[in-house]
Structure formats: C-alpha cells, structure tokens
C-alpha cells in the first residue's frame, strides 16, 4: 500500500542565496561605478583625485574633485570660469554684456589683432602688433576731475597744462647782500607724478642810494628759488640813473629796469614751492622790488 507523502512544500522552490541576491539584468542601478567612472542620477564623474571631469547640479567642471575647486567650470547659467583660454575663431555672443576678468592674450604663435566694428561692419578701432588705429574717432581718457581727448587734429584737454601765476603790490626793499624772499611772490603746487614745469618770471627793480663816486654801480639781483634752491640765471636790474636838472639842487633819479627769466624744470612727484628772491649788490645801496610789476608764472606740461 502506498504511503501518502504529506511533507510540507511551498508552491514555489526556494532559490539559493546567490540567485536570490542577484540584481536582475536591465534593472536600473542606484549609481554605477566602473573603475574611475561613477554615474548617479545627480552626479557624473570620470577620473581620480583632482584629475576629474564631472557634472552635477552645479554644472560641469574639469581639473578638481568638485565643482567649486575646479580651474575650469561652467554653471547652469552658462557662466564660464577658466584659468586661461586660447581662442581660435570666436563667435559673437547673441546678447550684449560679457564680463571677462583676468588676462586676455591675443596672438602669440601668430600676429594678434582685435577689430571693433560698427553696425555696418566697418572697422572703427584696430589693435594689433603695430599699435592702436582709430578710424575717424576719438581717444578719450577721463576721470572725475578732467577729460583729455585726442582726435585726428591733435590733443584737446581741459586740464593738460595746469598753470598759475602770482604777483604782488607795492614795493619791497632790502640792503642785504644775501637773497631775501619777496613777500607774496611764492606759489606751491603738488605733482601726482614726475613732470616738466615751465617757469617764467618778470621782475622790476633797481638799487639806489650810496655814493656813486666811491661805490660800485648799484643794481638789484633777482633769483628763482625752487624748493629752497636758487635756480637758474640771476635777474639783473640795474638802476637807470638820471640827474633831475629841473630841481635845485639837482637830484639823482633812479629808474627801475626789468629782467625776465624762463626755464623748464623737471620735478618729481610731490609738493613744490617756487619763490622770488632779491638782494642788493652792495650794502651801501638799497635794492628795490616793484612787486606790482613782478610776476611769477608756471604751467605744468601735462596733467
């Protein structure tokens, strides 16, 4: 008589662990890694260490483990950050407004040039190895203080040659044979950079008094003081001496004479003071300076 087998069974066979734990073919992976290549739904990277090409929700990058540290990266708005770039044929951007920070090098292995054209495709500005060429335009340099313009006719500047002059009033005398400051005939200015300064003075003076029969001919001497240093030739103002035969007894009339001086000074940056000085050639005589007819003038050759 057969025995009925009531041994419990499942309606399916139990797979061994090695089969049950296999990932089915074609099933989507939660990330895949193959050597230095890793792919996830939110990130893709190829390479090791900092020698990585990657892409994630920040954008794409090259040259670092992560986007933030990469020397080349492009964010999702299309902004490019690159340590350097070599451009061949460069296509213009469709919309205006580009920002470039750092250095742009054009040329190197070939002669470089940059052409700026107008809307009629006419080159208006050219930068090349020979310099800058502006076709029927202006070169304008300006700041809050001034504007300098160079056009095909030359230099136009409202501030390129700053100048000033000073004069005085009444007369000043001295019997000193050492140079004395002429009161009021002083000017101070400050240069932002080394510059050449044209200085001119016109002086009026003479010397009088003394015994003409026993003393050398009287005259006043003038000199330009630049930052405390007597500079240039001295101005010689002898007295014009007349006898006033219409007075009794006859008197001696001294009439001033004029001297002038011009020079170009090469001055460094900083503050500078120009002064006029004068003296008499002999203490027996009194040197006289007509300050109302003495003028000290300068202009700076450049801003």
């Amino acid at each position, binding site marked *: 008589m057969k025995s009925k087998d009531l041994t419990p069974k*499942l309606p399916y066979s139990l797979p061994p662990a090695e089969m049950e734990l296999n990932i089915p073919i074609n099933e989507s992976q939660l990330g895949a890694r193959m050597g230095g290549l890793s792919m996830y739904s939110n990130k893709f990277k190829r390479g090791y260490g900092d020698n990585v090409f990657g892409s994630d929700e920040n954008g794409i990058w090259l040259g670092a483990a992560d986007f933030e540290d990469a020397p080349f990266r492009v964010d999702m708005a299309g902004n490019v950050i690159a340590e350097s770039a070599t451009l061949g044929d460069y296509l213009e951007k469709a919309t205006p407004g580009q920002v470039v920070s750092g250095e742009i090098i054009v040329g190197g292995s070939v002669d470089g040039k940059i052409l700026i054209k107008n809307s009629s495709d006419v080159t208006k500005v050219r930068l090349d190895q020979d310099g800058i060429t502006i076709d029927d335009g202006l070169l304008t340099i300006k700041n809050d203080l001034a504007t300098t313009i160079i056009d095909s006719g030359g230099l136009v500047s409202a501030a390129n040659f700053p100048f000033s002059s000073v004069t005085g009033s009444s007369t000043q005398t001295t019997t000193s044979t050492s140079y004395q400051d002429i009161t009021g005939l002083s000017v101070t200015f400050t240069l932002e950079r080394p510059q050449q300064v044209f200085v001119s003075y016109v002086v009026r003076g003479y010397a009088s008094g003394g015994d003409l029969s026993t003393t050398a001919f009287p005259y006043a001497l003038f000199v330009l003081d630049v930052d405390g240093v007597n500079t240039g030739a001295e101005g010689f103002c002898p007295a014009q001496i007349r006898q006033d035969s219409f007075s009794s007894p006859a008197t001696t009339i001294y009439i001033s004479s004029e001297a002038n001086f011009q020079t170009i000074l090469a001055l460094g940056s900083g503050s500078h003071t120009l002064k006029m000085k004068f003296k008499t050639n002999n203490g027996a005589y009194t040197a006289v300076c007509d300050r109302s007819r003495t003028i000290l003038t300068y202009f700076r050759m450049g801003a």
Partner: protein
Amino acid sequence: MDTDFNIEFSDFHNGNAPLAHLDNKTFLGTKGHSSEAKADVISKPGFLTQSPALADLTNGNQDGVVSELIRFILDKPTASDTTYAIGTTKLFKLSSTTVTNGGTPSFPQTVTDMTEGESVVRLKANLYGFYNKASGGDILKMPLSTEVIDPDWGSTTDLALENAPHPSAVKEDIMVFGNGRYLGVYVEGLAVLDTQKLDFGEGSEVVDVVFHSNVWWIAVNFGEGKRGQIYLYDGSAISNILSDEAGVGDQSIGFLYVLNGIIYIAYDDKTSDGYSIGYLSGSSIKPLRYFSGSLPDFRQKALYRNTILFVSGGDIWSCGASVEQLPVQISKLADGGHATVGGIASPFGVPIIASSDGSSNHRLAKFSGYSTNSNWKSVFIDVTDKRYLGKIHTVIVMTKPLEADAGCDITLEGNQGDVTSDSMIVTGTGATRHVFRSVNLNAVEDIRVVIDYASGDSTHDCPIRKVVLLGNFAER
C-alpha cells in the same frame, strides 16, 4: 485510497516560515521552516540544534564593572584582543574574555556630562566617541596610545552635537556621523570638523551611515520616523551635494549593513505588525525576510556565520545564508540576556551582547556553550483526507551521534495546538536514530512537531538532522 502517510522535517536551515511573523501557527512553509522557534539553524547547516548560551565576560556584570547598559560595542579590535564600548556614562575597554577593570588610566572611564553613549569609532591613531548630554551632545577624542579622554573635543573644534542618535562610520582618514537632521564630517588629513555638513531638513533624522563602493550611504527617516530615504554621498565627503537617493517609502529605517558587497536594510512597515530585512537592488529596496519584535538600530547589528546578527524584541536574530548555495533564512537564534538589549558586535569573531533589566542588573556576555532555553516548532500540516483524520503512530528522529547528557524532548501538537502528545525523549550516548512507536495522540486534523531543549545539556548539544512522522488515516 492510501491509508498511510508520512511527513518529513529536514533542511532546518530554511529558518522561519514566510508568514511566521504574522502567524505563529502558520500552515505555509516547507519541511525545514519553523512557525515559531528559538534555535540555531546556521551553525551546522542541515541540522537543528540548541541556541548558543550567554556567558558573562570577566567583570562583565554589575558585580564587576558593568554597572550600566552598554549601548555600543566597537566591532573592530583596535589592537590585539582589544576593543572599546560605550555605555550611558562610561567608556569601557574589553578583550574577548574580560572587561578591563583598572589600569592607567583606570577603566572604565567616566565621560564628563555624558548621559547616553551612541557610538565609538577608530580613526587612525584615535578613538572617537559620540554621546548625548542632558542637552545636546558632543564628541570625545581619545588617543589610543595614551587613552586619555578629551570629552569635549567636538564642541571645542566645531558646533556641539544635537541630542539625537549618532551612528558613525570611517573610511581612511574621513569620519562621517549622524547628528540629528545633519550629517557631520571630520577629515583628519585636513583637521576639519563640520558637525552640520549636510542638512536633511526639519523633521529628519540620520539613523545610520555606511561606506561602500566609494560612496557614503546615509539612511534618513522623515516625518517623525514615518518615511525612510537612503542617500548617496561622494566618498571624499567634500561636496555639499548628494549623488543619488532611493526611497524606502512609508517605512522607517532601522539600520544599514554591508555584507559581501550588498547593502542590507532593516526597516519597518507601520501598516503591518512585522519588520523587514531587505537589500538595495538598483534603485529599489527588495524585501528579503520578515520578523516580529522590534526594529533594531545601528547599534544592534553584527556579523555571525556569514549572516547578519541583529536584535529584535530582546532576542538575537540571524538573517542570511551560511553559504550562498543555501536559501536565505531568518530565525531567532538566541536570547539577548536581560530584557533590554543594548549593543551587539563580533570584534573577536564570537558575538558579544550587552543587556540590562532596566534596574541594577547589567551584563556584557558572549556566546558560549548551549542554551536549554531553546525550541523549534514546525509549520502545521493538514493530515485530513476527505472524512479521514490523521493518526501518528511512529516518530523517527535522526541526529548526530549524541554525547552524554545531550538530548531533547519531542512532542506533537494537533488541531492547531489544541491537543498535545506526551513528550518523547531523544537521548542516548552515541545514538543517531531514535524511534518512538508509542505516540499518545488521537487522530487530528493537523499536526506539527515541537522540539524542546529544556532537558538538554549546556555543554553537549543535540543536533537533529531529520524528523519523520508515520501515520495512517482514520475515519471520524
């Protein structure tokens, strides 16, 4: 018609029946499945035997130095036969046999302000411990060479921790840890600590972190633990961007575990009574087996006999296959000791389990010998045939050759547990085949085998290879 029938029970390595977590009197299963059990089906595949017993380590209870629940055991030795564990207020040092008492510094060491140790991890030449305080948390640092603890290294280096679970993991010189809603990172090579490197948002909590296949896998629960998500994070832990993610669904995650290149996940289903062990397959979570009890956390997982050891309901469970040619099984392996189980680990190969009764009794014990508090019950088998009921007249038990005192009791339950036979005692030095021809059980509708090791031995186990029931149909 056939008047005789036979039922065979073997292949016990199949573990629990598919529906055992829902019905401990299930009919669905194979000859090797159990409807209810606490036994060892993995140590000797093909044989059913007693659960391993627990033996306290030297100094491993309240009479020694274990005066509190040990919450986490480092699962890797830091030196030959040395590892560390953290309790509620102290850091412990242990070997495979002993919990260190004394030394310089004197162990266990009290950690200032610690109220709840969370995890310890070794990173290069230092041990780092994560813990909670009355308010917030912190990270301790202890050079392994000096064993002098700096209790607030974390808060003096960066922001203090949240008061939350703190799972942790290490890869080379990078340490990653959970910090409430944040993931923290420490890169030792850069000496940079960021306790809030990633923010998963309000209402979230990082419950586990593991490292696998060059990425960090982060388990996060949301919505007061009602929803789980797994995130992938770049292995360098430098970026602020996550690489990928997979949703577990309306289920909270207990832990992640990497075994043989596969990520396993323990998670629960708040709509049912059970919990699941599954694995990550592509972008989906494949449930493997189910269990009842409670959801284990990151502190309660270990490796044993190529299977995942975990804690549920105060017991120690096993899930996996001893060898890949056998099916995946889940089974209750052993008792956890006292009612509340803390951390488990296998730093020296043999599982070590911490437990507490919630009062003054605490223990740190390892598997040793055999437990007599062990049993196994088969699925129920329908033994009716039309009008006929089944009557068992012979029971045959096949075992390994038994040592002295080894044995077990066999009973048969019928009618879904309504009636029970007398015990049949399996014993006898050297015996391998045990035949019982006198079975005191009337004809029943259904039947299952119950194996109880209460009368067994703690030194010599009773491995069972097969149980065969022979019966005949009787008209009723």
